[in-house]
């Protein structure tokens, strides 16, 4: 083995730089505070490696991004790697903070280390932008909202703002090109820029050696193994924490981006300070917070070595400590303030809760069925549970309520039509056939039928009957209700006998077919068709065109509009066919359930 390594060294000379690394000395000898740099560097390596692995399965397209990330999450190793990628990014930012503090307190920027200092300072915005370009790649609602807001902030910069925004977003609106541009920035341009600056940074560290104001003596203790073991200990600890978080918590995946849904976007925690700062500079003053102040801070830090040279060592030490204390507390204050105020903001909390609910639903649907070619956005758009209430509120709730027995649900603006909660189910029909309830708000009370033929017919079922006969009529009507709920497909196998009995009563004793058509008995025209009552096709027909002879033709229709004329007449349709189907499926409780 030794001979092989000797040959390798004679060809590549690898042992020389390795020796330089091993025998490097440090001011004051190996210390725990010197681990920040190594930890930071190795975290970047981990981030790049996990990034490469994720690239093997990720697809940067608006239709495929969310779906491919969900696909990665299905695999345990994929879930873990994505989690590491997510948490290591944040660890890099935190470690960077520690590193800056350490460098400031030890005045490590003193000549001849100026280039190390400057490259390091420029790495701050680069690393932050690197992180910001990564978050929207999952195609989530929060991710794309963030990049839209960040694009608008950048766009607010005087002169070059709009141009940079167009490059970032890939046009004037967020779309396919946004993801491809962000992907290019994230996996190509920014790694190259960061890598180049890092090469200069680390090259200079080796060339100039390290400096520390409080221990100017270089100790003769070599780097390896006394500093290396400290570095590795810190790195292992940090990686254990990241791995634990990655495995147990994992990276978040909220709902696929959909402009139809409102949201209350917030930046990631490391940008919250800028977000808070921006709140105090409204309108045309905004670039002051987002561009000017950060630029001024950066410039101040760049010239700090000059200031340091102009003061005495003790003044400089006080100045540097002051910068650290003021910087940290300001940053902490600006970060915590929006977190606290968001907690009290009920509207924001409601939006957050809705996002969480929708995201859970989207992930549940994606787990159940694979994603159609249109992309993950179709999952919630085709989900009756998600779209039903929204569409009902928009189109039906001016007249109809959808309220359960506990009063929960949607209340009509001006109730003038039956409560549609459980329409077509046995209990709903039983209420309908109850003389005490048919003329109430829940059914015909507010309609033109409040004193019509059906109401009086139901009353007559119970007319001049003693309490025993009334009880029997009630039970019979329950069978009729069972039979009608069977038309909708809601009757269970256990109710089969009752359904049969009810059907006989419907055509026989109660003579419903005198007015209603029911399969091969009765005629259309004077009352709604009871064939397939409450079924999907019946409801599609009823809501689509209530004036059809099957339902309430001509003057018999109270006030219900025609919602869907035909596919060939899109201008005349109030609802699209898809929207009509979603409302009907929702009313019937036909959605994917756990």
């Amino acid at each position, binding site marked *: 083995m030794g001979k092989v390594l000797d040959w390798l060294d004679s060809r590549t000379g690898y042992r020389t730089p390795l020796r330089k690394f091993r025998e490097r000395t440090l001011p004051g000898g190996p210390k725990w505070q010197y681990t920040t740099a190594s930890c930071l560097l190795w975290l970047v390596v981990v981030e790049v490696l996990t990034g490469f692995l994720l690239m093997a399965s990720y697809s940067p397209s608006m239709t495929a991004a969310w779906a491919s990330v969900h696909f990665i999450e299905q695999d345990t190793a994929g879930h873990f790697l994505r989690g590491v990628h997510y948490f290591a990014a944040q660890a890099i930012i935190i470690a960077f903070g520690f590193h800056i503090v350490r460098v400031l307190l030890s005045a490590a920027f003193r000549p001849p280390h100026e280039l190390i200092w400057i490259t390091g300072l420029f790495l701050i915005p680069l690393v932050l932008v690197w992180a910001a370009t990564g978050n929207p790649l999952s195609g989530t609602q929060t991710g794309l909202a963030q990049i839209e807001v960040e694009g608008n902030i950048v766009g607010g910069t005087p002169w070059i703002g709009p141009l940079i925004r167009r490059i970032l977003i890939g046009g004037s609106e967020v779309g396919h090109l946004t993801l491809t541009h962000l992907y290019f920035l994230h996996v190509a341009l920014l790694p190259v820029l960061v890598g180049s600056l890092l090469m200069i940074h680390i090259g200079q560290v080796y060339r100039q050696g390290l400096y520390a104001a409080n221990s100017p003596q270089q100790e003769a203790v070599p780097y390896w193994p006394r500093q290396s*073991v400290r570095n590795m200990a810190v790195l292992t600890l940090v990686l254990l924490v990241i791995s634990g978080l990655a495995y147990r918590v994992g990276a978040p995946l909220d709902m696929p981006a959909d402009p139809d849904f409102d949201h209350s976007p917030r930046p990631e925690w490391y940008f919250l300070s800028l977000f808070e700062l921006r709140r105090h500079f409204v309108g045309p003053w905004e670039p002051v917070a987002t561009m000017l102040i950060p630029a001024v801070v950066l410039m101040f830090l760049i010239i700090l070595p000059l200031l340091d040279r102009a003061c005495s060592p003790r003044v400089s030490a006080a100045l540097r400590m002051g910068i650290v204390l003021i910087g940290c507390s300001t940053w902490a204050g600006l970060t915590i303030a929006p977190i606290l105020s968001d907690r009290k903001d009920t509207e924001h909390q409601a939006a957050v809760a809705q996002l969480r609910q929708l995201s859970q639903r989207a992930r549940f649907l994606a787990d159940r069925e*694979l994603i159609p070619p249109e992309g993950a956005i179709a999952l919630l758009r085709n989900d009756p549970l998600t779209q039903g209430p929204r569409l009902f509120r928009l189109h039906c709730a001016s007249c109809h309520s959808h309220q359960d027995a506990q009063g929960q649900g949607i209340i009509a603006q001006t109730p003038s039509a039956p409560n549609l909660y459980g329409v077509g189910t046995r209990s709903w029909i039983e209420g309908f056939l109850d003389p005490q309830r048919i003329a109430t708000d829940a059914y015909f009370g507010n309609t033109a039928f409040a004193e019509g033929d059906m109401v009086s017919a139901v009353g007559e079922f119970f007319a001049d009957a003693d309490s025993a006969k009334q009880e029997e009529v009630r039970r019979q009507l329950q069978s009729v209700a069972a039979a009608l709920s069977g038309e909708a497909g809601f009757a269970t196998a256990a109710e089969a006998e009752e359904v049969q009995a009810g059907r006989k009563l419907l055509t026989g004793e109660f003579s419903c077919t005198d007015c209603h058509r029911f399969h091969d008995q009765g005629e259309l025209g004077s009352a709604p068709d009871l064939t397939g009552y409450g079924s999907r096709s019946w409801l599609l027909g009823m809501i689509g065109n209530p004036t059809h002879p099957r339902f309430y033709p001509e003057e018999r229709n109270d006030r219900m509009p025609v919602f869907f004329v035909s596919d060939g007449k899109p201008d005349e349709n109030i609802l699209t066919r898809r929207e009509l189907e979603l409302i009907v499926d929702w009313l019937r409780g036909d959605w994917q359930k756990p």
Partner: protein
Amino acid sequence: MERRRMLEYLSGLLAATSAALIGVPGLRYVLGSVRSTQSRGLDCRLARLRDLPPAKPVRLAVKGDRRDAWTVYAGQSLGRVWVIRRTDDKVPAAQSQVEAFLATCPHLRCSVQLDGSGDAFICPCHKAKFHLSGAAYTEQELGFRNPASRGLDPLPCQIVVDAAGEAWVHVQFQDSSRA
């Protein structure tokens, strides 16, 4: 020196631990993606049993959902199968025997046809020939070396009776019996 060696080993151990924390899942991930994600054996309903004449091969198209990693394409034409009903009407539906073969030639995947007489399958590309049992003709039977090294690929077939009492032929469709 003792202490130094210990620290050297410790450094190496910690470095190896850190590498393993990321490297092992990384390796699993890479190897995992090499596994086939195509569903093995998609259950497809082909035809009513009573529509199939006994002992006559019928070529049917298989329609189903095609899965591609995270996307599903619904109602796709997945391929074609030759179906032969082995038993006649005298046998009750649930005990009927039906066999199904992939209609692609095991040689180079051309579309296998029925020959003029209806007694054998032939492949127009290189003249491979198969018995109605699916077995490839031997060299003696054919007169030349059969390009197909094996018979037609069989697919698992079941009779499923639906709620209305109708017997349907189902097949577990797979693009190839060799992955």
